[in-house]
């Protein structure tokens, strides 16, 4: 038996990847859905206090409801109203993308639809549904209809 030499731990690709390095990958469409699923989840996580603030003000009293609605026009503190609207739009997109991509996961789990073609076509469907709904709700938010 050959003398065993201590082997240095092999570095596997992606093992020590930092979050910022994930942005440098040229991803297939299914990979885009996946990383944006993550990004949208993190966005909602960090904006959770704002979401609860909206919930609090919108239901607590008529006075707080007015404060809630006026935040989208007059802003909150030094933050102007259109920035609040943009943040709300980001949340709308994040929720829709996360939810549709989540349903895609459940569908893949339930039907074992894990081929390359299915991954791509369901990714297209995910983007189509979430982006169209985001545009519609965003147009409503910014008063286009």
């Amino acid at each position, binding site marked *: 038996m050959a003398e065993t030499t201590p082997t240095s731990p092999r570095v596997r690709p992606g093992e020590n990847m930092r979050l910022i390095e994930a942005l440098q990958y040229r991803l297939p469409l299914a990979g885009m859905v996946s990383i944006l699923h993550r990004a949208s989840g993190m966005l909602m996580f960090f904006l959770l206090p704002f979401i609860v603030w909206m919930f609090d003000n919108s239901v607590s009293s008529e006075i707080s409801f007015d404060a809630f609605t006026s935040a989208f026009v007059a802003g909150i503190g030094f933050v102007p109203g259109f920035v609040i609207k943009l943040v709300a739009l980001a949340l709308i997109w994040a929720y829709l993308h996360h*939810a549709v991509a989540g349903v895609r996961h459940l569908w893949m789990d339930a039907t074992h639809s894990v081929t390359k073609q299915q991954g791509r076509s369901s990714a297209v469907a995910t983007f189509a549904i979430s982006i169209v709904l985001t545009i519609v709700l965003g147009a409503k938010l910014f008063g286009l209809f």
Partner: protein
Amino acid sequence: MAVNYGSKRVVVGAHYGLRDWLSQRITAVLMALFTLVLLLQFVFGGPVGYDSWSAIFSRQWMKVLTFVVILSLAWHAWVGMRDVWMDYIKPVGLRLLAQVFTIVWLVGCAGWAVQVLWRL
């Protein structure tokens, strides 16, 4: 279930993530159903305004459902954020810090939301 603690702990093999995987999916389904229920009440609840909006959350069954969804969201986000920290943060101390922050953040937000809900 295999022994998951002590010196007899099986440190290799599958199923370690099964509970997280399953709970993330169950909480996701609960939140999706809640979204549909809320959307239906919003659409068919009459003119949009404070009265119709707050009335949705003042019904007892909706409070119970919302309460469950708040807890589901916190659990779901915990599993997801833990995955993210485990993938991208290697130093143990920093990862622990991120995980503790996540729990504090989620428990704090959930507590606030529950307070808002049950004082209606």
